[in-house]
């Protein structure tokens, strides 16, 4: 019996394939697979997004994703772990990220999948920029500017 967890990590400009993820996660001998897909949403309140652009510190992002996958495999008994992130332009309705885990039982698959996406969002050096229908753009997350410093020190 193989006690290790097989994993797949990729960052790519090409569209992501759910089929590839399911195919990968279904091998081994899982009883349950949980899969999370991030999709470019059109409407945020009254703002209409046309597309997202993802920037990344590519080499470090891959390193961080591998850390996260290793932590997941240490934290839960998993069969397989899958993480794929798209960068560059992602139009509305298309998938920007797929994370997933397979396990003998569903608890572990859900917990790992949730951990993967939460930690990816907070730790992995990838950033999205919204391009809105009115032509404006905005990097996410919106950051508070440290005003006092900006006012008191000229460039």
């Amino acid at each position: 019996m193989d006690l290790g967890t097989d994993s797949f990590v990729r960052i790519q400009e090409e569209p992501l394939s759910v089929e590839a993820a399911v195919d990968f996660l279904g091998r081994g001998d899982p009883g349950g697979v949980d899969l999370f897909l991030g999709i470019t949403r059109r409407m945020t309140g009254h703002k209409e997004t046309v597309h997202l652009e993802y920037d990344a510190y590519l080499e470090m992002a891959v390193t961080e994703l591998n850390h996260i996958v290793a932590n997941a495999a240490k934290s839960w008994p998993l069969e397989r772990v899958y993480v794929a992130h798209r960068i560059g332009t992602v139009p509305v309705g298309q998938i920007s990220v797929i994370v997933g885990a397979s396990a003998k039982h569903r608890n572990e698959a859900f917990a790992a999948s949730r951990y993967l996406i939460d930690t990816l969002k907070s730790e992995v050096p990838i950033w999205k920029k919204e391009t809105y229908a009115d032509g404006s753009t905005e990097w996410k997350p919106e950051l508070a500017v440290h005003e006092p410093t900006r006012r008191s020190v000229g460039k």
Partner: protein
Amino acid sequence: MTECRVLLFSLLAEAVGKRELVAAVELPCSAGALVDSLAKDSSPIRAYRHVIRVAVNREYVPETHVIRSGDEVAIITPTSGG
């Protein structure tokens, strides 16, 4: 003065207008001192100084981490992948 190249991404790269800056610091120096030095000369870095994390050789480091010549240094604003 040693030259220390620092990688920029996302809103910092856009605001500064390039994906790399040179910090005028004496190496070795702490990650915190390096960002402070960059902030002195760059208003976008100054504006986001309070949320910037430093990565050295593709790993996050605390501000006390000592940067040496040859290290790959990047400054990272809060991420928004997914």
